[in-house]
């Protein structure tokens, strides 16, 4: 059946409705909230399957549905949904893994007081992630990007009364924000250059040839092509969100959140959003490949950063002792692999690895959650042990996940996806350094994973928690089984013999495979490397298992300084604290100084002026006006006083005047009359 792109909004809308329901329900409605969340995810999954069918029917077509959202006057802001194989595969993956993790959370979060909020936030996250995937507009993608970041903040800091969790949530949000600034700048530059933010718009979209040609042709600062500059800015966002070097520091701390959160957000989906973004705007990133005289190609930067991250993550994971931290750094490393694949030109390999990684990393995290839940929240692997006998299902599924991650040949999906990446890296003509880094990473990956398995599951239990551990209920083990099956089966979607996924993603008409013998050399090399890593891990950790929780690490005994340095995560946090942190404090102090002395001084000055004016006014009123009146009335009173002095009270005086007056009057009359 066909599925019009017009209805793509249903896929994110269903979890969003579940989130809204969860928000308004009272605490007693926890069951309803959880049920709604799971139902919404399952429904979204079904819709995504239908969309997938439609997309696969014509893999090369990009079905869009654009609509006008905002009339700016000078232009109209348009948004849209995009349906193509990439979108469909991602939707199916997110909804499927999400539904399984939600079911797992039913058991894991059962005793938690914030059960209802948990499902509300998880649904919100799922809605935002799906919105990010189906968006045809960079603006809509950015909005969903930020919502995903918000959901991550809420979920990392879910147990917010723990100071470590609150601090980790803040760190995650701020670090990704730094990357998001680059993404925003790139977005604005793109809009300014091309006048549109839609990816595909019937020829006018930014990922279509007309726009790309113009962007590649323009040159900006330093001789960079505009498309390179915009691509690098967008890559900043991916660096932040996907935990690449140098913005990887938030991912290990994000393990403070509940384990289902770590599984869904920080393994399978959100951190993959960066990779997805680069894959989505790949035409833009690759636009400058045809230009010869540019100082740097965008994809070269991506490749190198990915390589550095892959190696660094694997190295640090060797020295970690918290089960979730090991897996977190493993995620960092694998994301580095995906970026590497993008950089060396094979975005389909990156997407394939993204899809397989989602499943087996989610499986590993859920397995870790199962272990933590059973061992009464004991997360230090040195204090675990002996769980292989006590938690059989968890052990077997965890082992399958580890084999997939390590890249056990032939039957595990991770092998095929990693092969594709190594193949692409080997074939890159710019430099072979990423290839060597990837190769070394393979060894380290095998090594630390063996270490993890050996220390956690084998040997004797080294703490009361591990001793009393028992298998969890089926609501928690069933998702593990399903994911384990997927971790095996999915690999066969894209073997070199039958590269179905590649064909679908690239929009080719027919699947052309080639025999295994063509890449046999490289395949053999990777098998040898994996064996090397596993062997070293077996020698150090499996042959003589740990005796107690406080015994020193065998590798630490041999190379103490290296282990301490690795254990301290290469001291990145301290470096950032000393530089960026100090700069921030200095800027804040300066701003405070300005506030108190300059702005405050101005305001005070104005206030003083006001006071002075009031004073002048009052003085004028009192002295001049009142004084004038007082003066006049004083004169009047004085005159009156002067006149009243004539009233002496003495009769003789009055008579005197009377008589003299009479005499004078008569004289005047007589003399006047006589004239």
């Amino acid at each position, binding site marked *: 059946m066909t599925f019009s792109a017009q209805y793509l909004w249903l896929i994110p809308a269903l979890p969003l409705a579940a989130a809204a329901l969860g928000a308004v329900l009272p605490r007693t409605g926890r069951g309803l909230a959880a049920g709604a969340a799971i139902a919404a995810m399952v429904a979204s999954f079904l819709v995504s399957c239908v969309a997938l069918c439609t997309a696969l029917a014509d893999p090369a077509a990009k079905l869009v549905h654009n609509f006008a959202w905002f009339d700016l006057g000078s232009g109209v802001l348009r948004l849209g949904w995009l349906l193509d194989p990439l979108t469909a595969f991602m939707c199916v993956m997110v909804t499927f893994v999400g539904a399984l993790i939600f079911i797992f959370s039913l058991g894991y979060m059962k005793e938690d007081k914030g059960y209802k909020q948990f499902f509300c936030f998880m649904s919100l996250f799922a809605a935002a992630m799906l919105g990010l995937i189906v968006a045809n507009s960079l603006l809509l993608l950015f909005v969903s990007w930020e919502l995903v970041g918000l959901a991550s903040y809420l979920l990392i800091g879910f147990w917010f009364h723990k100071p470590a969790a609150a601090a980790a949530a803040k760190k995650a949000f701020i670090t990704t924000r730094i990357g998001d600034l680059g993404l925003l700048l790139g977005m604005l530059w793109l809009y300014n250059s091309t006048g549109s933010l839609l990816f595909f718009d019937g020829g006018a979209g930014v990922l279509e040839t007309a726009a790309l040609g113009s962007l590649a042709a323009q040159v900006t600062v330093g001789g960079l092509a505009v498309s390179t500059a915009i691509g690098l800015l967008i890559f900043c966002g991916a660096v932040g969100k996907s935990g690449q070097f140098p913005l990887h520091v938030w991912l290990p701390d994000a393990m403070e959140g509940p384990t289902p959160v770590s599984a869904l957000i920080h393994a399978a989906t959100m951190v993959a959003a960066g990779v997805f973004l680069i894959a989505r705007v790949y035409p833009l990133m690759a636009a400058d490949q045809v230009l010869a005289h540019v100082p740097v190609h965008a994809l070269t930067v991506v490749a190198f950063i990915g390589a550095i991250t892959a190696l660094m993550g694997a190295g640090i994971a060797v020295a970690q002792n918290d089960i979730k931290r090991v897996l977190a750094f493993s995620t960092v490393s694998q994301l580095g692999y995906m970026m590497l694949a993008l950089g060396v030109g094979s975005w389909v390999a990156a997407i394939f690895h993204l899809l397989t990684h989602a499943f087996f990393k989610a499986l590993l995290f859920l397995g870790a959650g199962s272990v933590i839940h059973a061992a009464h929240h004991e997360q230090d692997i040195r204090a675990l042990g002996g769980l292989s006998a006590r938690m059989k299902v968890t052990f077997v599924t965890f082992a399958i996940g580890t084999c997939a991650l390590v890249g056990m040949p032939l039957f595990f999906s991770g092998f095929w996806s990693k092969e594709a990446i190594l193949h692409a890296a080997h074939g890159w003509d710019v430099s072979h350094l990423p290839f060597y880094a990837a190769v070394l990473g393979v060894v380290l990956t095998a090594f630390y994973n063996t270490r993890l398995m050996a220390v956690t599951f084998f040997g004797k239990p080294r703490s009361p928690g591990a001793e009393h551990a028992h298998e969890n209920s089926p609501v928690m083990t069933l998702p593990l089984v399903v994911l384990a099956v997927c971790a095996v089966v999915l690999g066969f979607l894209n073997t070199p013999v039958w590269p179905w996924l590649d064909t679908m993603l690239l929009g080719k008409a027919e699947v052309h495979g080639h025999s295994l013998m063509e890449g046999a050399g490289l395949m053999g090399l990777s098998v040898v490397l994996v064996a090397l890593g596993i062997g070293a891990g077996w020698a150090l950790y499996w042959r003589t298992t740990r005796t107690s929780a406080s015994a020193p690490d065998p590798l630490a005994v041999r190379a103490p300084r290296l282990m301490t340095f690795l254990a301290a995560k290469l001291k990145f946090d301290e470096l950032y604290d000393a530089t960026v942190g100090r700069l921030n404090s200095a800027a804040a102090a300066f701003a405070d100084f300005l506030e108190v002395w300059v702005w405050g001084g101005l305001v005070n000055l104005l206030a003083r002026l006001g006071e002075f004016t009031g004073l002048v006014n009052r003085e004028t009123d009192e002295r001049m006006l009142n004084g004038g009146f007082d003066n006049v009335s004083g004169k009047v009173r004085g005159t009156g006083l002067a*006149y*009243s*002095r*004539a*009233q*002496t*009270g*003495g*009769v*003789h005086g009055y*008579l*005197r005047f009377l*008589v003299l007056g009479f005499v004078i009057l008569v004289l005047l009359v007589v003399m006047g009359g006589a004239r």
Partner: protein
Amino acid sequence: MSPLQLCLILSSLLFCIGLVAVMSRGNAILVLLGVELMLNAANINFIAFWRYGPHPEAGTGIIFVLFSIAAAAAEAAVGFALVIAIYRHQQNIRLQEANRLKG
């Protein structure tokens, strides 16, 4: 100089004596006596004109003088009562000291 003129001069001089007394003496009783003198001088004037005037049988002069004497008596009574009242107030009858009604 006719007798009339002589009478008139008499009355004028008497009037002026009374006036000087009123204006210069400080004793209230003497001031009132001066006023009586002035009234008497006016009476003398009336009688002089009655004696030497054109219509003496009208008796106007006599009658007027009678009334004048009566009025002078009344005024003397009230005036001396006032003097007593003033004396009660200020324990002497110096007119300069009775100057409370001033500005």
